[in-house]
């Protein structure tokens, strides 16, 4: 929807989606590649304490921010295709929050680019999670390790 580059599929939505159907459609849309990597992020129940997760986002910025990150990945690893689906709103434990997929000639590029996309989405896409439990609610705080993970990508080719 925000994607100028035809290699990028980007969906930001409240509705649930089917990861398997998405993977098959993505693979079919990029014939000729040898490797497809997918990541799906799922709401954990945190030992049955979490009752729901509420995801807020900055709608005007989300699309452009994710597009910019994905364009970087597509260029750097010469991807045939990249896909990002990210949900917002209220989600229950076990629900799929988001999905990333990459299609490349070889496995190294497919793995590295999906890993890169996740690291950047985690700390640079404007989403915020609030965790609800029986005891109340709490904004999920960013982890120092997530910020640190970004440095992995600065000195590689």
């Amino acid at each position: 929807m925000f994607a100028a580059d035809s290699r990028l599929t980007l969906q930001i939505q409240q509705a649930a989606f089917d990861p398997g159907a998405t993977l098959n459609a993505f693979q079919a849309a990029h014939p000729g590649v040898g490797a497809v990597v997918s990541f799906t992020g799922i709401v954990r129940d945190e030992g049955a304490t979490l009752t729901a997760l509420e995801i807020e986002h900055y709608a005007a910025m989300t699309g452009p921010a994710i597009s910019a990150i994905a364009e970087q990945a597509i260029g750097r690893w010469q991807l045939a295709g990249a896909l990002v689906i990210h949900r917002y709103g209220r989600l229950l434990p076990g629900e799929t929050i988001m999905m990333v997929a990459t299609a490349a000639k070889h496995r190294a590029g497919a793995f590295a680019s999906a890993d890169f996309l996740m690291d950047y989405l985690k700390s640079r896409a404007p989403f915020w999670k609030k965790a609800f439990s029986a005891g109340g609610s709490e904004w999920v705080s960013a982890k120092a390790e997530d910020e640190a993970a970004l440095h992995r990508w600065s000195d590689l080719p």
Partner: protein
Amino acid sequence: MTMIEILYFAWLREKIGLPGERVETSAQTVMQLIQELSSRDDVYALAFADPGSLRVALDQELAEFTSPLSGVREVAFFPPMTGG
């Protein structure tokens, strides 16, 4: 003096009690805007007490607290992002 749209997200939105507001300001930088807001009301002073725990975007792009505001129409403040 120019009109700027300010947006707040996550716990910052809850602390300030507003998703956003239009303000008339002569602030030249993000930091000056924060100081202006903080001097207006304790609610802002408390919410912005630790700027290091906040992030800012100018016209939907991540920026610094030292970034100039000239030409900017939308300033968004929020805690570090937790997507993925």
